[in-house]
């Protein structure tokens, strides 16, 4: 398969397979710019998260929501750009979709189970 290939190409031409437009030197140059930009966003996001901590939002729910929102945005950038998920094969999406579904099941159902108290036993109409 790859056998004749690795011989016929010099080291510099290691990038001509698959979806060619993504791997041409110009395209790589463009993505490098994108990588640096995402790096900047991640730094900014971190600064923002820490700043939010010192601001003290009065509501607990809001504090958690904001922190997780910023973290999710950062994570989306890492996964989408650094891990090339924004442009990946269907197979990978399928696998990750299953994983996310089961992860939500694990977290959601466990938390639900822990916070769905058994029905109260009533004796003469009053809680036992």
């Amino acid at each position: 398969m790859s056998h004749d290939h690795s011989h016929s190409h010099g080291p510099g031409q290691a990038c001509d397979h698959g979806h060619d437009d993504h791997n041409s030197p110009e395209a790589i140059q463009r993505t490098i710019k994108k990588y640096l930009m995402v790096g900047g966003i991640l730094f900014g996001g971190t600064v923002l998260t820490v700043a939010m901590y010192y601001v003290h939002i009065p509501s607990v729910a809001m504090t958690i929501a904001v922190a997780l929102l910023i973290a999710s945005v950062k994570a989306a950038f890492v996964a989408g750009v650094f891990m090339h998920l924004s442009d990946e094969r269907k197979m990978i999406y399928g696998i990750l979709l299953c994983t996310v579904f089961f992860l939500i099941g694990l977290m959601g159902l466990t938390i639900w189970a822990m916070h769905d108290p058994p029905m109260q036993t009533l004796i003469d109409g009053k809680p036992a």
Partner: protein
Amino acid sequence: MEIPYTVKPRPDTGLYNAKLGIWLFLASEVMLFGGLFSAYILLRVGADLWPHGMLSIPIGTFNTFVLIASSVTVVMSWASLKLGKLASFKLYMTLTIACAFGFLGVKSYEYYVKFTHYDVWFKDDATAQKYFTAAYGEKGEADVRKHFVERFHLHNTKATYDPHEIQLAGHIQGNPLFASHKTLAKAKTEKIMFEPDPKFGSHDHPKAIEIPVSDVKRLSAYVPAHSTYFAIYFTITALHGLHVLGGALVLGYFLVTADKWWKKAPEQFANRIEVGGLFWHFVDLVWIFLFPIIYLL
């Protein structure tokens, strides 16, 4: 015998084997950390008390920067390979590995600080009062209690707490690691010299006080046995740390063997870096959630 699609993608899936393999592995890692995060949520929601502000935010922020930087450098090293620049690949990869060990070094320091920091619970409230007064003066005691309430509450959570259970935090003279009331009893220690922490918002160290072990109900360094908070903190961060270490070792191996591989199979080498990079980004991704959850919330 040759296994197909180790280098070139299979036409119908568009993937080479290792890339599919690493994504499958990462899917299982998502479930692993997902299980741990579920545990974290359940323990925290179910807890009466949950410490707050126990970790140094500047250090945590610094480490976050380090890890983000390493994520940028590792993707740059892969892009360099794609452009055929071996030298700049090596530079970026070296930076990545340096970041990894920088992260681990900072983390070890954080661990060390925790392992030598102690909480003492006294046998009863009167005894506790005695030592608090000895450490912080008559007025100081109320301040410490107030700080205790703050430390254990996320802003305005209405957690109940037992005022008898207020503990005195500080260092034991000689900075022993991992001491506990059990090890003290085993060593037949009769008393310890305790250096209480400065009052909240101040930097003046109170003078050391002598505490007979017989007055101590419980003594624990900031280790997993201290509380479920430290237990989950150490477990998740240590597991994450092991991932950092493992990733750094693999990337280091790629760096050391770069010349050989570049000459022999450049395309496969670029694939390997891509796959290693995917793992590395995932480790970064876990930290992106870990940092706010454990340090800030």
